[in-house]
């Protein structure tokens, strides 16, 4: 039958891992960046948001680099 089970498994695991991780990072970023007033809370939230966005962007960039390479 020529079924490439290995490749299918890699696709399943990699795509699930990447998708869930990205969604979690962006969700945390959204929560952080929409934190309520109170200067300390807002600053902490913004910091968390920025870190999460950068982490997500890094994952996306790395993935595209692997594919293009």
């Amino acid at each position, binding site marked *: *039958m020529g079924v490439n089970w290995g490749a299918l498994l890699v696709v399943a695991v990699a795509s699930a891992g990447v*998708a869930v991780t990205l*969604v*979690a990072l962006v969700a945390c970023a959204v929560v952080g960046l*929409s934190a309520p007033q109170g200067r300390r809370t807002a600053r902490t939230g913004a910091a968390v948001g920025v870190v999460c966005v950068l982490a997500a962007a890094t994952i996306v960039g790395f993935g595209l680099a692997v594919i293009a390479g």
Partner: protein
Amino acid sequence: MDASVIVVVVVVTALAFDFTNGFHDTANAMATSIATEALRPRTAVAVAGVLNLAGAFLSVEVARTISSGLVDDAQVTPTLIFAGLVGAIVWNLLTWVVGMPSSSSHALIGGLIGATLVVAGPDAVHLGGVFGKVVLPALVAPLLAGLVALAATGLAYRITARADVAGVRRGFRIGQVVSASMVALAHGANDAQKTMGVMTLALVAGGLLAPGSGPPFWVILSAGTTIALGTYMGGWRIIRTLGRRISEIQTTQGFTAETTSASVILASTHLGLPLSTTQTCTGAIFGAAAGRRPAVVHWGLAGRMVLAWTATLPAAAVVGAVASGIAATGTAGVVVVALGGLTVAAGLYLVSRRDAVHAGNVNELGAPVPTRVAA
């Protein structure tokens, strides 16, 4: 018919298929973003068009699979490829008219298989390759995308449960611009290559390219440009189905569906597995919809889509087989098939004009799709 003339006919027909692939699959990337108003309709299709072109240059792994893994290259002729493409185009246009998302990939493969069976016999079709590289991944893709999107959506709502509602909506709306762009890029990387593979196959069959060759640069450029143009035309009918008729989609769900789709499509493209982007994206949208409230998902519509997907490969194969039988008679047969295809395309376009869907009314539900809504 002179060999070089038929190759030109095949290349033109392949680009026509690529164009239909573009507007047929615009919804995959942009339906949820348009439905949630993260992007305006015209902006969405413009972004999708540009990124489809960029994606076409990312990888050629799928192109190689199409051109050498499913049918015996030695048995394939340019006329056979032409007939297969006609089968794929007719099915694409038919499903577009009824607003049903279906796999352009399966339509193309079905058309080629049908045409090959008539002209070269069953021995020329690598059934193992068809099952292993096409059918099985196509079964897995929507399920995988659906389950991942379901989990990701549940996680996203849990994380944002106590956050400011307006802030969450705004944040994920911005996120959708990026995620939808990634799906458009993934679509270009995956789908433009199918046409590249067919064009390369035609060039090899016509003796203009060595067997086993990858697609020349002009093939990559023309296929990428054509799919981008088709994408910009916007398959509004299918955009409405995916964006509005499955369920009422929020920005959170749109983001999770698009992120899941892009991840699955890009991973499979990188490994040379020609997944159906339509089935992947549709599965992800259903999964994301169910991740919030399963009861308001139009599951009956899912059943109709599965029927359409199941029919795609054999239906395109039948049209491809008929076209192949006629075209194989000679130049007159090719002309008859070409005129017949154009007539069918024109007729389907006129039918679509009776209930035109466009950028201005794409988010209106319009005439209801006859299906039952879960209680």
